[in-house]
């Protein structure tokens, strides 16, 4: 019974950790859906959002503002910073590259990554900034059934709930709003969308802003887990296999991909790791991604693109 309890504990923790990866992956999906660009800068955006939030929060709390009022103002400030970032990216990085191929735009986002990382640290600092927005202790469930019970981290549950709400909000946005439908049109063909009067500059600003807000949510949760610091940019690497598995164009795919990666890597680390030296979870996620690529190159939920040549 204890073995089963341990297995369930690892599985549940893995699934919940996977949802946290999905939070980062969602930002990638949004920008890919709207511009066909793989946004290398998503990790840097999480860092920028996190630094803006925590530094504003610390500033206000130090001046005697009640914590939750400071959190609200900090969120507004960070959202404004992400809006400025979206405007700058559209105006100076992507705007001049309309109708260029995807590789050119991908390279431009690599450049944007280093600029965002550098500027964020220059303005807000490069130390570790603790952030405590969610509880980080754990519940112990099923103690009567399993010896020691099953540990469930409260922060992970918060992450799961927030990710679920985000998915619903984003699905509604894409399917039922004029801007959402325009986003999908721009993703299919920049030039064709422009020719029917879709304001591409506005659409790109909106999508980078939404991706920035998703990055802010990811930063709030991951910042509570790790402290806001440069290493938070590495989360982009955790999101990559999630995207490969779920598909680059699917919001629900990002969640399902996250669940598969999270559960897969944790089970592999705990049950396979001790036999082959451990430390396998990082690359095991990519093994899962490769397996999916072989069977479904577009990912489990990605759109199969058929081009007439």
């Amino acid at each position, binding site marked *: 019974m204890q073995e089963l309890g341990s297995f369930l*504990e690892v599985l549940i923790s893995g699934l919940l950790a996977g949802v946290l990866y999905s939070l980062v992956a969602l930002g990638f999906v949004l920008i890919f859906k709207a511009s066909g660009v793989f946004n290398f800068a998503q990790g840097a955006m999480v860092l920028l959002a996190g630094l803006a939030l925590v530094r504003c929060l610390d500033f206000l709390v130090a001046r005697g503002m009640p914590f939750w009022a400071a959190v609200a103002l900090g969120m507004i400030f960070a959202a404004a910073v992400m809006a400025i970032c979206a405007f700058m990216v559209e105006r100076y990085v992507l705007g001049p590259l309309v109708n260029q191929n995807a590789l050119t735009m991908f390279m431009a986002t690599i450049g944007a990554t280093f600029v965002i990382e550098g500027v964020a640290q220059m303005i807000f600092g490069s130390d570790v900034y603790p952030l405590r927005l969610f509880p980080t*202790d754990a519940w112990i469930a099923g103690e009567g059934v399993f010896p020691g019970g099953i540990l469930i981290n409260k922060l992970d549950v918060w992450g799961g709930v927030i990710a679920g709400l985000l998915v619903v909000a984003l699905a509604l946005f894409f399917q039922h709003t004029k801007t959402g439908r325009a986003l999908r049109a721009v993703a299919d063909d920049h030039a064709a969308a422009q020719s029917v009067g879709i304001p591409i500059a506005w659409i790109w600003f909106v999508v980078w802003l939404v991706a920035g807000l998703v990055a802010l949510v990811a930063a709030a949760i991951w910042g509570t*887990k790790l*402290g806001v*610091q440069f290493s938070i940019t590495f989360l982009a690497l955790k999101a990559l296999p999630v995207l490969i598995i779920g598909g680059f164009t699917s919001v629900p795919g990002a969640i399902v991909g996250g669940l598969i990666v999270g559960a897969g890597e944790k089970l592999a680390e*705990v049950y396979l*790791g001790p036999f082959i030296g451990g430390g396998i979870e990082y690359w095991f996620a990519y093994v899962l991604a490769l397996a999916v690529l072989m069977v479904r190159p577009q990912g489990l939920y990605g759109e199969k693109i058929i081009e007439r040549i």
Partner: protein
Amino acid sequence: MTLKTVGLALAALGGAAMFAPAMAQNEQYVPILSYRTGPYAVNGAPYADGVSDYYNLVNLRDGGINGVKLQIEECETGYATDKGVECYERMKGKGPTGASFFNPLSTGITFALTDKTLQDKIPIITMGYGRADSKNGAVFAYNFPLLGTYWSAADIAMQHIAKELGGEGNLKGKKIALVFHDSPYGKEPIPTLEVLAKKNGFTFIPIPVTHPGVEQKSQWLRIRQERPDYVLLWGWGVMNGTSINEAASVAYPRDKIIGVWWSGAEPDVAPAGAQATGYKALMLQHGAGEFGVHGAIKQHVPNRLGKENFGQVLYNRGVVNAMLGVEAIRTAQKRFGNKPLTGEQIRWGLENLDLSAARLKELGFEGMMRPVKISCGDHEGARDGRVQQWDGKKWNIISDWYTARQDVTEPLVKDISAKYAAEKKITPRDCSKAD
């Protein structure tokens, strides 16, 4: 701007260009390999600040070492081995006599440079890190793991655990886990812990964490399943804070976790907030706080880099490291003259470094560290440590001094350095004949 003005400006520049090398001829070139960017910057920056501030103190207060000014240059490695090697290659030949020595602050870079420094005859100082077997100066003539290797650290940590348990005999049957950065650095203590596990009869459980350590849930779930009596933490950067957070989430008592001295600074506990309370870590002799040398830096280095981190653990470690390098140059000058020295000459200075308590007091390090004496056979020089505990606001020293047991570490040093010598076809020096 008239032509005459341009001409004067060019003449001035030309004069400065002619004058600059003339000044540099009497300067000792000291490179600093640092990382102020990247995932480990939170730990690398305060250390580099300490190093830089101490060198500047020597220049500004004393006019250099016996009149020879230090010519300092930093190179950013980002804790990446390839960048570290690149910095080394670019800097090794600079200055009138080449680089004095290198402090890479990375075990990975140390492993990559060990062969090169031997060829180039430039010492590599790895204070509290690097290859533990390089304590044996007979084989590793140019490596100086001053003040403590990871094998010494592992032994000190186990001595402390034994003391908490009421004696070495009580280690029998216990479980000790090592949560380590999956890199040359993190793997270093494993041989010592395996030896001690056999000797004392405890079960040793190594648990690796992949770089950079932002996700450790599976490792700590394993800790929850295995329920070790103590956890040793061999982390760096973001890994340390994440470990403490995850320990809290699986309700593993923080006072049963003992970090190595690279897991025991302020940035390591800050992300975990109150959850880090009770967490313990080894001290590489010194801890946080201000001592005589800090007063001197405040007085003589107006633009010091250490601000918020002034007097913190890693800043102080940088200061100690820089002081040991400066004193090695001073020692070498006694033999080779008060002039810029080569790496080979400074190697002699390092190998003959002897800092007594009186000298440490004179330098402003009284209370910070114990005397250290390096020799051909002992490039570590001292192997003393204490244990500190985080109370939620500051580190408090909670133990007396421990000295790593040579009967535990020395057989490993001999065995592994001999294998290295055989592999690299190095004939070990006869230390009884070393001057």
